[in-house]
């Protein structure tokens, strides 16, 4: 897949805008997922993910083709999202829970045409709860947890995406994991 993406990037660098469509198509869900899990609501996640792709496109010349494109793209997405979280007013955290559920509710409605069996409703509630607990983490722990367990990146890749040493990634994962453990132990 990486080779196909590399080919597409060469075409984009030559000025073929249409080649970018395949890149968006391939990475859209991953990028959206990172933004959504970190920012917490569907509307803003869409906005951020779009912005990330547009920035990747306009700065494609700066992308070093010897590197992994996904790492570079995720870095743009996480940086944008972390910036957005920082700029948010503190009062955001008060209604974070309400906002945080938006995405999942909207999401669940798509599949909710048939009446849901009870256990699925339960698991949906559980998922919403987990989502909220991830969002409750401080941003620096949230980003590593999202990248590690939802996007399943290696520690090394996370270090490259966030531009921090691997040791720091580990420390943050440990702390984030401990915090989540305390929150989720009774589930």
């Amino acid at each position, binding site marked *: 897949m990486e080779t196909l993406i590399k080919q597409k990037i060469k075409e984009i660098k030559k000025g073929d805008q249409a080649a970018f469509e395949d890149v968006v198509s391939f990475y*859209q869900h991953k990028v959206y997922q990172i933004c959504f899990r970190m920012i917490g609501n569907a509307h803003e996640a869409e906005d951020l993910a779009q912005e990330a*792709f547009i920035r990747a496109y*306009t700065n494609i010349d700066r992308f070093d083709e010897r590197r992994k494109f996904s790492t570079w793209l995720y870095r743009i997405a996480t940086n944008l999202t972390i910036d957005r979280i920082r700029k948010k007013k503190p009062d955001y955290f008060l209604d974070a829970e309400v906002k945080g559920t938006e995405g999942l509710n909207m*999401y669940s409605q798509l599949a909710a045409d048939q009446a849901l069996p009870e256990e699925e409703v339960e698991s949906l509630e559980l998922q919403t709860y987990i989502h909220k607990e991830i969002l409750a983490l401080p941003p620096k722990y949230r980003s590593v947890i999202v990248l590690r367990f*939802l996007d399943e990146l290696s520690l090394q890749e996370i270090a490259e995406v966030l531009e921090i040493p691997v040791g720091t990634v*580990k420390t943050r994962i440990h702390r984030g994991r401990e915090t989540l*453990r305390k929150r989720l132990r009774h589930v």
Partner: protein
Amino acid sequence: MNCKEEAIALMHKYLDDDLTQPEEKKLRLHLQSCSECQAHFHELKRTISLVKSSSAVSAPENFIADVMSNLPQQKKRNHYIRWFRNHPFSTAAAVFFLMMFGGVFSAWTEDQQVTVSKQENLVIQNQVVIVPEDVTVDGDLVVRNGDLRIDGAVNGDVTIINGDILEKKRVQDSPLDGEKYMAYVSGEVNEVNQVFEWMWYHVKETLEGVFALGNR
């Protein structure tokens, strides 16, 4: 083993796939004897599977189209910039030619007044420079921004920039008279009317200058 520090650190190392074999053995032995750490370890593993179990979210259906329609159109400009960056020599040459021709061009548009290289005995009337019948110009004659009528004779080249050679009607009547007219000018006759010719003229003159220097 200190549960709070060492054991928990080992658990995280285990979860990161960072554990060496002796460490793994140490952790396993400890877990067998310490129920508290067992519980802790279990909770950690469960936490991870819970986080992982939260279903993957997908981007909205219209996402690709939205991104594509919001892409900037300035791609062309970037393209040129990239080209310039990749071809520094061509860029330098292009800039050089631009400035050179720019200089020549501004010299072309600069003055619209009639100027003649040799003023003696010549008559200037309504933008027409006349070499009277009884006058012979020795050397080259250059006329700018005006027409030239030669009734007399020129011993040398004639260059007319932004003007025409006016010929008497009778001169044009027969080819023989044409020859006669040519006889008045012993050298070449150049007319420069277009900017392009003007440039060509400049280039030629410069080159001639260069070669003349070389021949010396």
